[in-house]
């Protein structure tokens, strides 16, 4: 096969194959989440859906890996040379590490759908930066570069997974706070409210944990008939679900997501050839993120306990922070070798430093008792905005020494 055909094949593997598989797996997994409260036949369907989601996800990762390999063959070098390749690999690392961590380390497969959704979003963003395969500038063609870029890309992918967890944590926490506030108001006093709040967390545990949900009403569901008590419990649970969802005001969420995404996505306004094309990209990115946020809002009742997501966000951030630290130091060493200076406050170096400081802020906030929880999660979200912003700005807006935007 010629390199043209290989290039074409690698593009097809990326889009639509991988993108569709990730999206499909994500939808199936998210559907499986909704079956955790319901009758036995529904739970059976949930199990099947999870299995199907797993198959789709594995196929997606396989297609993605195949894309990377074919692209590497087409251009006869590692696919780590430009924005598109870096973004694609970032999605691959984020999805693989996220799924493996959730499935096998944390045993929280119910969150897989969100990780896949995040991966699909990053993959889609990569489409905006698509570049045909080609050779590498000789200055970039070194073992140092591979080492440095792989670590930073790995770090970015894992930071992206951490962002998903932080965002879900904030959504769920907002819903729970609203329900607690509502109940304490309904109860007319804080003491009574507290009792209801305890009740709330029970509901949360049931909703969150399919195992618990399964055992508590499993035997009764055998014949698909719920007795009146169960029926009432179920109605209460559904009411609680609706209350949780209501607790996250959709308009505020959509606006907040739009504005938050704009902090980064304005870069698209400046990169396209024409103003209207730029505006189109800007709106596409923003509206996709808004849609993702609204989808996530719908799933708020099915999320695990906030502590779980908080812990996931912390551990993934810690891991990515280590990758980022080593990767940045490796970058400085490479710069010393190839440019004769180890640090020059070039836009990319500044961006890496800034991201590092932002995530150090998150880790410190987690370690300080006063700021933990929501405060830390918000710092985590802000740090991800810093990461994406510096990544895009340093590549597209300011052309520095190691910008590869023009490749």
């Amino acid at each position, binding site marked *: 096969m010629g390199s043209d055909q290989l290039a074409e094949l690698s593009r097809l593997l990326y889009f639509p194959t991988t993108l569709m598989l990730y999206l499909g797996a994500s939808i199936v997994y998210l559907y499986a989440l909704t079956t955790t409260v319901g009758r036995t036949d529904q739970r059976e369907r949930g199990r099947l859906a999870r299995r199907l989601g797993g198959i789709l996800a594995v196929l997606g990762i396989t297609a993605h890996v195949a894309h990377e390999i074919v692209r590497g063959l087409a251009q006869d070098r590692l696919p780590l040379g430009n924005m598109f390749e870096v973004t694609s690999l970032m999605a691959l690392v984020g999805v693989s590490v996220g799924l493996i961590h959730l499935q096998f380390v944390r045993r929280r497969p119910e969150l897989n759908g969100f990780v896949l959704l995040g991966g699909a979003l990053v993959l889609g963003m990569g489409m905006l930066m698509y570049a045909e395969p080609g050779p590498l500038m*000789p200055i970039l063609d070194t073992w140092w570069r591979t080492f440095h870029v792989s670590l930073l890309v790995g770090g970015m992918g894992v930071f992206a997974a951490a962002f998903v967890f932080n965002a879900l944590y904030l959504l769920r926490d907002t819903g729970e706070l609203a329900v607690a506030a509502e109940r304490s108001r309904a109860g007319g006093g804080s003491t009574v409210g507290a009792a209801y709040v305890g009740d709330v967390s029970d509901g949360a545990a049931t909703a969150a944990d399919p195992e618990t949900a399964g055992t508590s009403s499993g035997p009764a569901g055998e014949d698909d008939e719920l007795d009146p008590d169960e029926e009432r419990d179920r109605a209460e649970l559904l009411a609680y679900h609706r209350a949780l969802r209501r607790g996250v005001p959709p308009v505020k969420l959509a606006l907040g997501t739009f504005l938050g995404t704009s902090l980064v996505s304005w870069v698209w306004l400046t990169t396209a050839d024409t103003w209207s094309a730029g505006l189109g990209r800007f709106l596409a990115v923003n509206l996709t993120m808004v849609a993702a946020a609204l989808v996530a809002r719908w799933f708020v009742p099915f999320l695990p306990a906030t502590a779980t997501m908080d812990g996931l966000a912390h551990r993934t951030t810690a891991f990515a922070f280590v990758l980022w630290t080593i990767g940045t130091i490796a970058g400085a060493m490479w710069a010393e070798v190839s440019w004769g200076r180890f640090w020059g406050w070039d836009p990319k170096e500044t961006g890496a430093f800034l991201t590092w400081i932002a995530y150090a802020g998150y880790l410190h906030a987690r370690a300080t008792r006063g700021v933990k929880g929501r405060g830390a999660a918000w710092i985590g979200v802000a740090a991800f905005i810093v990461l994406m912003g510096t990544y895009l700005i340093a590549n597209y807006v300011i052309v520095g020494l190691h910008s590869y935007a023009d490749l």
Partner: protein
Amino acid sequence: MTESSLPPQQNPPVRRRRAAPSGPVAFVWESVLMGWRWLARMRTALYLLAALAILSIVATAVPQEPNVPSTVASWREGEAGPGVGVSRVLDAVGAYDVYGSAIFLAVLLALYISLTACLIPRIKAWIRLVRRSQPPVVRHLGAQDERTVFVTDRSPAEVRASAAELLSRRRWRVRRHDAHADDPRPDQVAAETGLWAREGGSLVFHLSFYVLLAAIVLGQLLTFEGQRGVVEGDPGFRDTAVSYWSYSPGRWFGEGDHQGWRLELERFHVDWVRDPLAPGAGQPTVFRSDVRVTPQDGEPFDAVIDSNRPLNLDGTRITQLDWGYAPRVVVEVDGEVVHDTFLTPVLTDGGFFRGAVKAPAADPDVGMDVFFYAFAPDGEDGRPVPTGAPWADAPLLVFQLFRGDLRLGATQQTINELDVEELTSQGFGALRLGQSLELEGVTVSFPELRRWVGFQVSSRPQLPYLLAGSVLLIVGLLGSLYASRRRLWVVTMEEAAAAPRTLVTVAGRAFQRPEAFEEEFADLVAELMAATDGAPADPHPTTELPTALPAAETTR
């Protein structure tokens, strides 16, 4: 329980000494103390980190003079950027050189003081902890994170010995406790791990910042960096203070520190993907210099400097920085040669190279603004069509000729810039390789084309220290994020009813990452059971288990 909800006592207690100021300096002393305490709070460190982040954002958004002086100059003159007024404000607050500004230095200083204020008590507490602390012996095992019971035929003492041996082998610190009359706490082996590594890792991580700072300051003093362009086949240059085009030595770098070698460029290799339809069209593929080095007192030798392989000469590093074409331009006025050298024009954004001819030997001075197009083939009408391509297949030299006063020495100008203030234009000319042209009595010819390479010569004695600081930073970070503090107790009881059986209770507590501890704990229990031929406890033990006792309380 997640880490964030852990009580502060997981960290060694920090004792604060009380100061008792008196006399007239009391006020000052108290203020200093208050400031110190404020700086010692982690929240303050967070604010300072945020300030550092904001400053780097400014440095990303505003062009920085040390990186892109020309952009800054055009902002100052209002040709680009937000205008002259805003530019003045930016200048006043030091935004054009954030990393050299007073604000940045102040934030950095505050961070370091804050770090120091934070670390001194933590180091003291850590040393105290490591020196004195022993794993605590428990009275009751009620509310630990993990708990398991098993039975074995071995005697209690044997089981404790096995447990102690197993845990020591896994590098836990172990304390054995045998009950006696004054101390009713049950027979047990108490163990703890991660105590050194976690807090110690965090300390090493933060201390590495001092190593890095020291190395950077050392670097400011001892480093040397110079740039110099060399034309192929030229005599090159010698490593002395005066031979560099730009030269920035550290304060303690003296002229005697130069090594005095000579560097010649024998040949420079550069090539590109020339097919405009091929992927990566126009990208360079080769970028390599064959050089000849003559040490001050030694034999000359040949060497190659490649894009990622600089040349090392006794700690001095020679890197390729940039390159360009070196057209030889000869200028004659009234039959007399007033200029005959290779120019070293630099690549511009427009895809051409720009340089200057300065010939003060003529009277009045001759100056030329030179534009060099590497690939400008003739078009259909016979006129050259400049392309942006960098390969010299159809080189074209375009110039604007000036006469007048070059103002050499009167103004700051680089070799590729012409000060046209006192010059008057005599018109334009264009030359192909080998041609010459007469314009207003001045004959300009372009007989030869070579290439030049800009080399950077640097000497940085601080690098090993920076590397050491980075290694400390990474090692400390791994410790502080991945070491986890855990405690474990193995309590043995003679089972009265079914002697000789020993009832073994293993309990553990995780200070960090409890979810990971579950598996570690299960592994440990499995190993201990294997070592003592243990069997899972029967579900209805005849003896009351230690758990039945009220809430856990750990004592020293």
